[in-house]
Each structure stands twice: as C-alpha cells, then as structure tokens.
C-alpha cells in the first residue's frame, strides 16, 4: 500500500510538471481526440441500435409505407393495426401465458437451488467440492442441441413431451450451472468475518447467515435472475421440439412460426417481434445495473 501511494505521489508530480510545460498545445489536441472518441462511440451505438429501431419503426407503419422501394425513415403516419393483427393471431395469449409460467416457475426453483449450492461451495470446504466445481464448468461445455434427441425420448417415456413441466425441467438444468458459478462468486465476495462477528454477538449460524449474508447477496441474486430470465424467455429449439400443440408453445415458437404460406407479413411480424422482446428489455433495463459486476464476480473470482 505504501509503495502504491508513493508511486501515485511520483505520478502526480510528473503530471504537474508536464502540465506546466506544454499545457495549451496538449489541451487542444486532447479535445480533438476526445471528440473523435465520442463520435466513434456514438456511431457504434447507432449501428447496434439501428436493427431494433427498424423493427419498432416498421411495426408502427401502415402496410403501404412498409412495402416501399424507397424506405421511410420515420413512421408517419403511425398505426397500431400491426399490433392488433399480431395479438389477434391464434394462440398469442396462450403462448404468452405459457412463456410466463415456464420462466416464472423455473426462475424460482433455479434461484433457490443455485443459492444453496453457491453457499455450500463458497462457505464450506468439503470432500468432492472440487469435483463438483469441475462438473459445474464441464456441464456448460455440453451443447444443448446435442441433447435434444435423448431429452425428447426420455421425456416421451414419462409422458412429459408437449407438457410445460418437461420444458421447465430442461431449462432448469441448463440455467443452473451458470447460476451456481456466478452466485458462488457473490457469496465468496462477502467476508465471512461479518457472519462470525454476528455470531459472537449472539446470532445463531443460520440467523447470522440470513441477517448478514443473504441481504448482501441480493444484487447477485438479481444478476443471476436476469441471466436465467433471458436464457429461458429467448430459448427456442427445446420448446420447438418438446411442445407440439400450438396452445402449449412458448412465445418464441409462436413468433418463429409466424411466417404464412404467402411469405412474411412484415408489419404484423415486426409488431409481434417487438411484443416478444419487450418483457426482456423491460426486465433487463430495470435490473441491469447489477449485471456487469455480477458477471465478473463469477468470471474472475475462480
């Protein structure tokens, strides 16, 4: 620490000396450079956002304005007809409900199970801990696509194809490893001394855990919940293979089958896509400030 402070002192001295000599020239050069960085940054944002803007803009355009050789950059006049068409298509509300049920049930179970495992691996040394962690990492290497066939056959045998429970179980297993790994980083970040001092003050071990560690892990739970929500809400192929009847499907399957025999109707399709993406974006935007830290907690803590 002392060495670091000394280094900072030396650095500050150097900076001061430098400013005195060539202040003006550097300042204008810096301003140009900063402007170049900012403009490039804005260009990146525009390129990334444009497809999403184009979806929303198309969703609000009347049909004649969509099918134009020279596109209209802004929707004018605005219409809600596309959204109405999308919502009125068969099974929309059924599939919204299915998606919500699947994601909701899965998330509650996943957070509970992952939290228990995270506490075990971050707070206790036990035989098999390393083997368990290797399994957690290793399982993430297996591509889900490769398991579709046996998953289908397995669930077929117990009569859980075309049932939400089967999909919930699969999503749970897919999301768990990453959740355990990330939450482990969060729990490990909270000094065990906090718990110990609460115990000295008369808390039981369990009491100390729920009063001290649990509230501090809150952001971690939120970050992993976002991850699980996105994974499950956006998943397509498992739901596509396992859920065959249209009133049992999820929103992504509904969206993917939107194209009619006459080719896609872009207006309603873009409106439907907007509606499908909306819950995720909302969920994400509300909670995103917990996320960046959450990822690295899992990644770097090891």
């Amino acid at each position, binding site marked *: 620490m002392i060495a670091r402070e000394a*280094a*900072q002192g030396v650095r500050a001295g150097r900076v001061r000396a430098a400013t005195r000599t060539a202040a003006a020239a550097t300042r204008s050069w810096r301003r140009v450079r*900063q402007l170049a*960085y*900012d403009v490039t940054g*804005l260009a*990146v*944002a*525009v390129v*990334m*956002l444009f*497809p*999403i803007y*184009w979806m929303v803009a*198309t969703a609000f355009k009347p049909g004649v304005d969509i099918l134009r*050789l020279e596109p209209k950059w802004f929707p004018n006049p605005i219409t809600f007809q596309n959204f109405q068409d999308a919502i009125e298509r068969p099974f929309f509300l059924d599939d919204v409900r299915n998606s919500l049920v699947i994601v909701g049930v899965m998330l509650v179970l996943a957070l509970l*199970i992952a939290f*228990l*495992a995270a506490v*075990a691996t971050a*707070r*206790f040394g*036990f035989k098999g801990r390393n083997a*368990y962690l290797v399994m957690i*990492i*290793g399982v993430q*290497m297996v*591509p*889900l696509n*490769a398991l*579709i*066939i046996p998953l289908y056959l*397995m669930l077929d045998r117990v009569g859980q194809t075309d049932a939400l429970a089967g999909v919930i*179980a*699969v999503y*749970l297993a897919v999301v*768990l*490893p990453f959740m*355990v790994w990330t939450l482990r*980083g969060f729990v490990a970040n909270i*000094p*065990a001394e906090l718990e110990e001092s609460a115990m000295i003050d008369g808390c039981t071990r369990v009491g100390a855990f729920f009063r001290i560690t649990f509230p501090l892990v809150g952001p971690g739970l939120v970050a992993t919940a976002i991850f699980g929500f996105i994974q499950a809400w*956006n998943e397509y*192929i498992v739901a596509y293979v396992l859920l065959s009847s249209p009133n049992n499907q999820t929103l*992504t399957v509904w969206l993917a089958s*939107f194209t009619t025999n006459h080719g896609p109707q872009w207006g309603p*399709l873009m409106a439907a*896509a907007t509606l499908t*993406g909306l819950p*995720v*974006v909302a969920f*994400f*935007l509300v909670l995103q400030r917990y996320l*960046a830290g959450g*990822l*690295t907690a899992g*990644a*770097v*803590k*090891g």
Partner: protein
Amino acid sequence: MDMAIAPPDLEPASTRPGLFRTRLLPYALVIPSVAVIGGILAFPLGMLIWLSLQHYGLRELIQHQGDWVGLGNYGAILVDPLFHQVIVRTLLFTFACVALTVVLSTLVALLLQRVSRVVRVIVMSSLVFVWATPVIVSVDIWQWMFDYEFGIINYLLTQLHVGNFIHHNWFDNPLQGWSVLVVVVVWGAIPFVTITVFAGLLQVPSDLVDAAQVDGAGPWQSFRYVTAPMLKPIFLIVICLSTIWDFGVFNQPYVLLNQRPSADYYTIAIYSYRESFGVTQYGLGASIAVLMVIVLVIVTLFYVRETLKVAEIQ
C-alpha cells in the same frame, strides 16, 4: 485488484468437533443441483451415446427398443461427404464469428474507457438493448432488413453506390448467405463480450498502464503487454463460451431460412436435428451429436484447461 484475493474458505466449519450436522450440511446444500443437472443433462448424455450405437427409427421409437449396430452409425456418418462438408463449414463459421466478436468487442470496450460519461451511458444502453433481444426476434429483424425486395440493406448499398443491389437475394449464394449469418450472430454476441471485457478493464489498475506509458510504451504495447495479460481469464472464458455457442448454432440459419434450410445452410446442429426428427433416424442423429460434442471438446480443451488453471491459482 481483488482478483488476487482468495475466496474465503471456512475450513473450520468442517473441522469443528462434534458438529456432525455441519459436516453433512454442504452435501445437503449441493444435492438438489446435482440431482437436477445429473438427471436432466448427465443421464441424457449417457443415453445419447447409447442411442448412437443403435438403429433407432420410428418403429423402434414406438416399441421402445432399438437394434444394436455397434459403431455402424459412426461408420455411415464418417464416410458421408455431406458430414465432412457440414463440419468444415461449421468450424469455419465458428472461427469467423468468434474472431470477429472478440476483436470488435475488445475495440468497443477500449473505446468505452475513453469516451465521455454521457456517450458511455448511451453506448452501454444500446448494448443492453441488443443483449436483451431474443435471438428469434433478431433473426426476424435481420430477415426483414436483408429482404430482397424491400430490405433496407439493399436500398442503402445501392444508394451508397456499392453496387446494384435492387432485388438482390442474399441467400441465393451460400457464401453471401453465410456472411449475413455471421453478421446476425456477431451483432447479437457483441454486447455480452463487450460488457464482460469492459468490466474486466475496470479492474486493471490504471497505475500500471500509466507506468508503462511513462516507460515509453505506445497504446498497442501497453495493451499487448499490460492490459491483455491481466484480462487473460476473461478472454479465456469469453472465447470458450463463444466457441461453444457459435459451434452449436441452430436458430439463426434454421429460422432465417424459414425452417426449411437447404443442405448448403446446414450447421452440424441442424444436420443432427434433420437426421433425427426430419427422417426419424434417431440413432444416426445421435451419433452426429456425439461427434459434435467430441469436436467441440477438442476445440475447447485448450481454453478449459487454461481456465481451470487460472481458477486453481486463485
């Protein structure tokens, strides 16, 4: 900085005498996750291998009983020229996507460090938006943007005098079609990688970079010799995950080509799916899936080993 701090291990908990309950507690805590992961992922993985050694078609599905063929499925697949084509194509596609994703994301992350606060918030929000967009939604968007008749891409390219793209169908030519798929995948992958790398960059002490610059290092040198080595664990994880995701890509080609992709647009995952559910040869499909996992393990082995090494050191 806190990368170096070891996670607290409460060894005393297990060594405290007489606490039989505490000694069993960690096992009780991990059992639910082991049960779920084992039951839903490990068991099917075993079943996949078993299935790949059988002739298992529609008749066998109804009877719940396959015909043992040993390595017959593998023999059939390995001499199939389409399989060779598909695997080479999937590997090239994965390489292109991962390389582009990591390079572009690192550049954006470095840029994020240098822009002013307002711009950083704007760029971050745009990344978050893209990140949250479901893959199926993004596929629909890009399909619309690359539409041969009214797509905005064709219009823009024509307006910018890149060439005459009016009524240009991007999927007639597989090379162009795959380029579109790379764009779709990389666009969707950039946010996660950028935000992860950026979060890592924040942990690189600025003193170190400053010191390198005082010692005369240029921007490239200070990145190459100071920043990049400190970000190694993050790069490893990001490359490893991207490789797994991109190698198993299914949704983008499948949905972009209206759920009826021609053989030119098969990835290994689509090929396996087609053999299983299209022509109901579950045994053949399973053997393709096993080969897919094997190739993936070989490709990612290096990253996994390095990642575990980094995790152990900490």
